[in-house]
């Protein structure tokens, strides 16, 4: 109730504001509208920076493209063949958004594989190139000897920009003379954008963005396609700035390349970071604060400082002009926020990560898994997917080889996981066990050999495609999405089994609503099954260690796998937690016919639970057999305990 009241008050204030302004004669509607355009831009940037975690230092480029799309299509002047037939404003804003989105994809595509800080520099480079191009394309002459195929072509208006730009036409609305219609136009666009962004954040796509931000590798291995997810972030983030830019151009009636420099990108970044990247409320707050600061506070503070100077009699203060310190304050603001409150003013405040052995002071309730708690849908899915293939092995690895420089991490390794079996993979440290997992899950490409899953080759599939086929994994060092909630972590696991598209996420047709509700229900059931009920809304990084392990397994199960790869699942657990987890793995196999490939150093666990065991040493398979055979195998004993040192010397 209270929240609804707050929103209604805000909406009422926004609706009444221009009329109050007129009555009181403030004449601030223009400035407020411009401020709202910047807030809209910051909201668009927030999709890229806040949600997807891609630091974009050249966001003003999209703003420029939106503005120039409007300027070029809707200007009655400019001499080139492209101009002279101004198109309708209402058409142009959509074209501007589409062009910006396309550019977003074009800029995003080459940056997909590069690291975060390199990506930032690449976007900065694009942000620099675009104003240079706009400046220089105002006067193009191509000279090939004496032949000039192009002479003094003006594509962009050059340094002088585009002027004038046509205004929107709407019967009875005085866009020409009155700032108020502009205010409402921008308010409507802003509100619609906010509405769409809010829905996007809580959708399948929004979760995928955040998963990528938190841990790209883990997201890939949980079934999220990083390529399309990142491109969508770039495209959608850019499209909002396309709207903002086109409205800005039409409102100002003139654009010059100087309005889209690096400083604008940084001011927008300030808004996002100050308010709290990833929080819509925070970004709006940050945008308002910075606009206010820039347009009002600096000038007022200058008056104040001068007044102080006159009163105290300090000539330096009398002559002070704080507006010249603008960029100093923006820089200081960026640095201070990062140093003191990196989550921003309105961001989710995180408890510090617990230090040391937390399971000792807060013992995790190690509830043994109950068979009846297995979600029925999971049971159905697993049975349905598995039964058809009969007795052939679910996973068959033949002659797998992978080198790192001179080290042979995997040398001609064969491994078979029969359907519904638990296969243990053991070996000394550095034997290549995790490398094998990484190859099977597509993180590392093999140099030779063949991996067949359910009768088809995995070839060169990306990790997320392999997850979609039905192989899930956990990591040796737990890789959750630390700043997302427990339920969100599991929902990311369901990503590849859900279908909601961008449009679906925004418009929420009935199919998407029910899919989302079902997904959440299933997520809760899975959490109950692994013993994490009641912790759905905790932030993952605040969970105790044992719970994090179980959450990772729940996330893996959410992908509806038929084979699960567990990388040292009991590492760091106390005996009781280990016992619970071992029972859980047994239950999964028994009740769901889930096949398990298990790396484990705890011999009691491996020997007790595995049907067959493969032993690796220096990348080579040295033994394969039942636990009893392995325990007697001379080469295994040799690998673990070493042979007689002397004998080796003199051999």
């Amino acid at each position, binding site marked *: 109730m209270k929240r609804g009241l707050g929103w209604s008050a805000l909406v009422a204030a926004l609706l009444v504001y221009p009329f109050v302004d007129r009555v009181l004669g403030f004449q601030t509607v223009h400035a407020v509208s411009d401020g709202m355009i910047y807030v809209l831009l910051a909201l668009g940037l927030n999709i890229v920076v806040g949600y997807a975690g891609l630091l974009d230092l050249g966001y003003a480029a999209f703003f420029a493209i939106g503005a120039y799309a409007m300027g070029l299509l809707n200007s009655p002047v400019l001499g080139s063949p492209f101009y002279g037939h101004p198109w309708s404003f209402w058409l142009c804003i959509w074209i501007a958004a589409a062009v910006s989105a396309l550019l977003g994809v074009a800029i995003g595509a080459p940056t997909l594989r590069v690291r975060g800080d390199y990506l930032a*520099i690449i976007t900065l480079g694009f942000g620099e190139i675009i104003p240079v191009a706009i400046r220089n394309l105002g006067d193009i002459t191509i000279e090939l000897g004496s032949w000039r195929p192009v002479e003094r072509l003006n594509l962009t208006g050059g340094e002088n920009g585009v002027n004038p730009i046509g205004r929107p036409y709407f019967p009875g609305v005085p866009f020409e003379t009155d700032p108020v219609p502009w205010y409402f136009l921008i308010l409507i666009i802003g509100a619609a954008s906010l509405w769409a962004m809010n829905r996007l954040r809580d959708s399948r796509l929004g979760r995928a963005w955040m998963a990528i931000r938190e841990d790209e590798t883990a997201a890939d291995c949980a079934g999220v396609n990083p390529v399309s997810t990142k491109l969508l972030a770039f495209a959608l983030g850019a499209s909002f700035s396309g709207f903002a830019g086109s409205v800005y151009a039409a409102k100002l009636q003139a654009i010059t390349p100087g309005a889209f420099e690096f400083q604008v990108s940084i001011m927008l970044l300030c808004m996002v970071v100050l308010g709290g990247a990833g929080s819509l409320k925070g970004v709006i707050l940050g945008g308002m604060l910075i606009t206010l600061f820039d347009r009002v506070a600096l000038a007022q503070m200058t008056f104040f400082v001068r007044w102080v100077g006159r009163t105290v009699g300090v000539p330096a203060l009398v002559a002070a002009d704080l507006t010249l310190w603008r960029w100093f304050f923006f820089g200081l603001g960026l640095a201070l926020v990062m140093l003191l409150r990196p989550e921003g003013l309105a961001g989710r405040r995180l408890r510090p990560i617990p230090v040391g052995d937390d399971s000792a002071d807060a013992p995790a309730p190690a509830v043994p898994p109950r068979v009846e708690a297995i979600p029925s849908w999971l049971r159905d899915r697993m049975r349905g997917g598995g039964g058809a293939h009969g007795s052939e092995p679910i996973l068959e690895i033949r002659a797998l080889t992978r080198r790192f420089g001179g080290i042979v991490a995997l040398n001609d390794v064969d491994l078979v996981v029969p359907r519904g079996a638990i296969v243990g993979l053991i070996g000394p440290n550095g034997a290549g066990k995790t490398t094998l997992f990484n190859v099977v899950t597509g993180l590392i490409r093999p140099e030779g050999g063949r991996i067949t899953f359910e009768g088809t080759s995995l070839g060169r599939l990306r990790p997320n495609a392999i997850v979609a086929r039905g192989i899930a994994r956990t990591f040796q060092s737990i890789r959750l999405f630390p700043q997302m909630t427990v339920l969100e972590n599991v929902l990311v696991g369901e990503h590849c089994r859900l279908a909601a598209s961008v449009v679906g996420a925004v418009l929420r047709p009935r199919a998407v609503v029910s899919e989302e509700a079902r997904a959440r229900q299933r997520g809760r059931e899975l959490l109950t099954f692994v013993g994490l009920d009641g912790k759905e809304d905790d932030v993952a990084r605040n969970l105790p260690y044992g719970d994090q392990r179980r959450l990772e397994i729940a996330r893996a199960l959410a992908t509806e796998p038929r084979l699960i790869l567990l990388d040292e699942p009991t590492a760091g657990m106390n005996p009781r937690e280990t016992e619970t987890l071992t029972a859980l793995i047994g239950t999964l196999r028994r009740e769901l016919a889930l096949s398990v490939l298990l790396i484990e150093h705890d011999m009691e666990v491996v020997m007790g639970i595995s049907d067959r065991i493969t032993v690796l040493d220096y990348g080579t398979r040295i033994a394969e057999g039942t636990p009893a055979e392995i325990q007697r195998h001379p080469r295994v004993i040799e690998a673990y305990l070493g042979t007689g040192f002397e004998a080796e010397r003199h051999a």
Partner: protein
Amino acid sequence: MPGRVRALGGLGGHVGAPQVNAWEVLVQQTINGLTRGAVFALIALGYTMVYGIIELINFAHGDVFMLGLFISLSWFALLGVTKTLVGWQLVTILPLVFALTMLTTAALNVAIDRLAYRPLRRSTRLAPLITAIGVSFMLENIALLWKGPAPIAYPDVFPSVDILREWFGVDSAVFITTKDLLVVGATIPLMVGLNYFVTRTRWGKAMRATAQDRETAQAMGIDVERTILLTFCVGGALAGAAGVIQGMYYNIGMWWMGYQAGLRAFTAAVLGGIGNMPGAALGGLFIGFLSAWSDQYISARWTNAIVFAILILVLVFRPQGLMGERSPDKV
């Protein structure tokens, strides 16, 4: 003031005279590129050393270079130098100003690290980058308020003698002055000294070890924080030296020059393989040549776009640099 003409126009009026042939233009631009490149190389070394050791793109580094130029101006003023140095002054005052400026910028760089980056050592990779951008804006704004928005004339403290004409009596359109010698004569000892420092001294060894693996270095008893401090110190000193050279060569300084020079130097560092010091030096020269040639043969208007396009292409297709070896990210 031949230096000034070249600084502003890219191409000097001497070269633009009608009797100039294409070869002379090329030679002249290559010399221009060499001097520009030497400055880029000195700045790039600071980028690459800091990145090598704490994986931070020190965005404010270019502004330390810019401040180095202005600070050296103040040192000259403090020492009462107003006109061209002659004779013994060249071997006393000039090295003194170099040393004082390098000390100042080194201290500045260390202060930046202590205040802005050190508290973020354990945070994500992007947090200190954002902070660095903030620091860069602050430094630029300080310079703007200190020196005003207009370009500042840097006094002609270094004698400019047309070597070919006055020493050798050759009448050529190519124009080589003692200032060109200054650039080479100041840069080479700095680089040789740096190389000695990094490869031959204990501190240099600590730096290389920390760059390769910070935790192991710490376990071996290396004081990592002090090594990082040292890195910022050396990087800042080199940027300061670059500032002095830039000022004396071009006789002009602008508050915004650090941003552009910084990005070009960063491009140079990336080209050479970030973290790789000889690579940064060569990359700097390459960017110097490239920008001089681009000014001449394409258009100065497009040079920035070309440099950035190279930066993007290298980062996308060869992030390990043109000479470096690929090192896979740890999974």
